[in-house]
């Protein structure tokens, strides 16, 4: 990969390109910060306690509505149930999503529900060690307030209660609540219906040891999280805008490469692959989720992101490797198996983990890999392996960057002694490497900084009358940034096809005397340099010179 546009461009043009990219960058932050609302909303639900009084109803698959017309027989608390001699098995916790007078919408993209038990401490009815709650859950939907409920899913789920009581366990403190961990409850990959109804039972059976020793449950609280419709719209708009921009530059880039006399080198292919994976993320297939009930969209989104991350990480390794300047032949993917291997393996682990969690959720939305002990261990194993792979990768990367810098300083000292073509070749390599290094570090630092800010910050800042949604700005800004990164990469690292003539006219400085001697240099270079491209080498040299 010799003679990239970046080297042949004048500093002035480079600055202009940089400014334009910065402008787009600022724009993408502003879109998220000023137009979009916060990315997600959490809605609190308190389960209504319904009484399943008539057994016959139960057989006919009855759904219990917490409010509105045909609402169930409610009880306020369980003292009332005690007085009315209602058994635990006849109590149904009903939650209607959303709250009254609202409708869910496909723009919400996904919905996940968190479950929390309010369990009061009672001296003689404490939560036993390792208590597990067994929930008999049903989910139904309907699209108009008048129609019948249609069952979507039904399952018997187990959730481990991780509760602790922070004060001393004395009679004095009876009635205080345990502090329990949030329990993952449900995850829907698409919100294609307007109304959802959850019916939760906690069946008790001493014989089967079901729901025994789970303390005195006072309430069940749910938190429903979904993406904000406004954010989805802004996000889609951004994707729809970015797809053609990346696609066009990609086609342009590939045309340039095919126009050359030599076959494309590895680095050029990797940059192209990066472009493809970026486009893969960009293509706004999510538009279909508005019209179709595609629950796998969430999983698909994960896969797309995973592919891009893996590609980006591989690109960095290969880019470093191709700029090592240690005279050994690379230009083959197999040379990098040690570095790319961990990436592929780590991504594969995360993919398996994601399939186990979100893949199974396609059939059973209540499934959680964290609910069972085996599942938790398995999930942890996958994540730990992926973590090790990530560490391994970064060690390799750091080592490689270190090597490159070592070689650069080595080459620096010997540069003046080299022939012009060689010197320019190395200078070009060093310039390209340093430029990308700088940009990549800047992008990575931005990502990390914004990630930390969005984690620590409460989500929005007020500036006078303006509310800036920091989290949304983070998502759109970082997404825009990596798009611009890939865009700039394909644009600036595309092979330049300035010819002798162009070069001379644009160069400004005369090189007449030098050209004759070049052929000799070239021959010499082909033996030492990995992928030399005869003519490019020459004009590169001239371009470099012209910049100076």
């Amino acid at each position, binding site marked *: 990969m010799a003679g990239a546009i970046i080297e042949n461009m004048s500093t002035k043009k480079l600055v202009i390109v940089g400014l334009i990219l910065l402008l787009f960058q600022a724009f993408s932050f502003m879109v998220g910060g000023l137009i979009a*609302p*916060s*990315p*997600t*909303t*959490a*809605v*609190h*639900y*308190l389960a*209504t306690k319904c009484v399943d009084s008539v057994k016959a109803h139960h057989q006919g698959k009855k759904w219990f509505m*917490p*409010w509105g017309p045909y609402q169930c027989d409610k009880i306020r608390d*369980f003292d009332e*149930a*005690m007085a009315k001699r*209602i*058994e*635990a098995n006849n*109590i149904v916790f009903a939650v209607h999503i*959303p*709250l*009254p*007078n*609202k*409708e869910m*919408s496909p723009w919400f993209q996904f919905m*996940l529900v*968190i479950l*929390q038990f309010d369990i009061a401490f009672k001296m*003689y*009815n404490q939560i036993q060690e390792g208590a597990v709650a067994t929930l008999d859950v049903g989910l139904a939907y309907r699209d108009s307030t008048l129609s019948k409920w249609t069952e979507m899913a039904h399952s018997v789920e187990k959730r481990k209660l991780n509760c602790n009581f922070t004060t001393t366990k004395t009679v004095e403190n009876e*009635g*205080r*609540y345990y502090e329990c961990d*949030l329990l993952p409850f449900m995850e829907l990959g698409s919100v294609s219906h307007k109304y959802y109804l959850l019916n939760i039972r*906690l069946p*008790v059976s001493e014989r089967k040891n079901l*729901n*025994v020793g*789970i303390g*005195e449950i006072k309430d069940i609280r749910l*938190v429903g*999280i979904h993406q*904000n*419709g*406004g*954010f989805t719209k802004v996000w889609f708009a951004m994707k729809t805008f970015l797809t053609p921009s990346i696609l066009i530059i990609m086609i342009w880039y590939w045309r340039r490469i095919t126009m050359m006399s030599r076959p494309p080198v590895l680095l050029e292919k990797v940059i192209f692959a990066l472009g493809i994976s970026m486009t893969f993320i960009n293509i706004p297939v999510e538009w279909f989720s508005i019209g179709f009930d595609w629950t796998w969209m969430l999983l698909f*989104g*994960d896969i797309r*992101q*995973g592919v891009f991350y893996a590609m980006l990480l591989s690109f960095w390794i290969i880019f470093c490797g191709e700029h090592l300047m240690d005279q050994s032949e690379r230009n083959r993917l197999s040379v990098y198996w040690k570095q790319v291997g961990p990436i592929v393996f780590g991504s594969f682990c*995360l993919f398996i*983990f*994601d399939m186990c*969690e979100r893949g199974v959720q396609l059939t059973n939305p209540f499934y959680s890999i964290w609910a069972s002990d085996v599942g938790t261990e398995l999930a942890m194993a996958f*994540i730990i392996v992926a973590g090790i792979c990530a560490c391994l990768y970064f060690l390799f990367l750091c080592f490689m960057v270190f090597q490159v810098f070592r070689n650069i300083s080595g080459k620096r000292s010997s540069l003046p002694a080299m022939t012009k073509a060689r010197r320019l070749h190395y200078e070009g390599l060093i310039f390209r490497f340093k430029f990308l290094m700088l940009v990549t570090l800047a992008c990575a630092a931005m990502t990390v900084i914004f*990630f930390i800010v*969005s*984690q620590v910050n409460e989500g929005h800042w007020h500036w006078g009358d303006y509310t800036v949604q920091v989290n949304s700005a983070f998502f759109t800004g970082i997404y825009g940034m990596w798009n611009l990164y890939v865009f700039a990469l394909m644009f600036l690292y595309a092979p330049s096809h300035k010819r002798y003539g162009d070069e001379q006219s644009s160069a400004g400085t005369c090189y007449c005397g030098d050209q004759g001697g070049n052929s000799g240099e070239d021959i010499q270079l082909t033996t030492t340099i990995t992928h030399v491209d005869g003519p490019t080498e020459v004009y590169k040299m001239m371009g470099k010179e012209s910049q100076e």
Partner: protein
Amino acid sequence: MTGLLNSQKEAFVDEVLCLVSLKLFTTPHYCRPLSMYLAKLSSVGSISDEETCEKLRGLIQRQVQICKRNVEVMEAVRRGAQLAIDECQYQFRNRRWNCSTLDTVPVFGKVITQGTREAAFVYAISAASVAFAVTRACSSGELEKCGCDRNVHGTSPEGFQWSGCSDNIAYGVAFSQSFVDVRERSKGQLSNRALMNLHNNEAGRKAILGHMRVECKCHGVSGSCEVKTCWKAMPPFRKVGNVIKEKFDGATEVEQRKVGTTKVLVPRNSQFKPHTDEDLVYLDPSPDFCEHDPRTPGMLGTVGRYCNKTSKAIDGCELMCCGRGFHTEEVEVVDRCSCKFHWCCYVKCKQCRKMVEMHTCR
């Protein structure tokens, strides 16, 4: 400076009250938590239509209007009042004044008609309980406006589908502010008692707002924290009660002073550091609550109260009985033991009898 802050606050919560003062009683700034009256209505049945609002004793005209406009909320307000009484009795179970209620209309009798610490507690806990109960009602879908109501500050104008609704707690607190505080506000010129009540009401609500638990869920790629959603969960009401009780123990005695044109409450002892918005304030020292006073309904005295012989604190026999001494008798207590429970509605116990020494105040 304080005066400025205070006036800003007043403008902010501009329709607030002292929970309840009654036409029944004569003193003009005779305020008692309104919810305390509502709680008494639990026997009346549900507050379901606008006409019931007229019949509620203890509401002032503006509250009746609010009631009519928000009939669906009143049921929650009533529940909140009950919650406040229960919590008050729990927190004060070991004190000379044990928050006992009367069957008469001002449920606490005349005990809280003076600006005492106890009155401060009752106002704070009632304002908090109304906010708490309304917020809960929102979450269970009983109310239709809640977080998406545009009358409540903090709502997104674009609506639920664009950006979701604001938290229910904002509605609960705003409702408590408008309904509970309107009593104090409606009288025009604020008396010092009204100022105290307003302050304590706000302190009660702050006890909830200041102890909201932030909970988060990560749900990015493979459940990573790349995407994280956080929300605020309301503390259990027992926790709110504990907080307000702590504020009760450290309440500041204040007096009214004029700063510029506004009246403010400042600590009577200038050595003390000024109270914050979360602290309770009171104007008058409390009586000792030792003797039954027939002229003061609710002043029951401590005769006949159980006490703890070994304790040196207020629940100990020495202090509880105000030095009058105590009876000791041995009583057979039937206790539940080796019980089997289900999570709800089922208890099977053996009865265990044991002899216990009980001490009662003379």
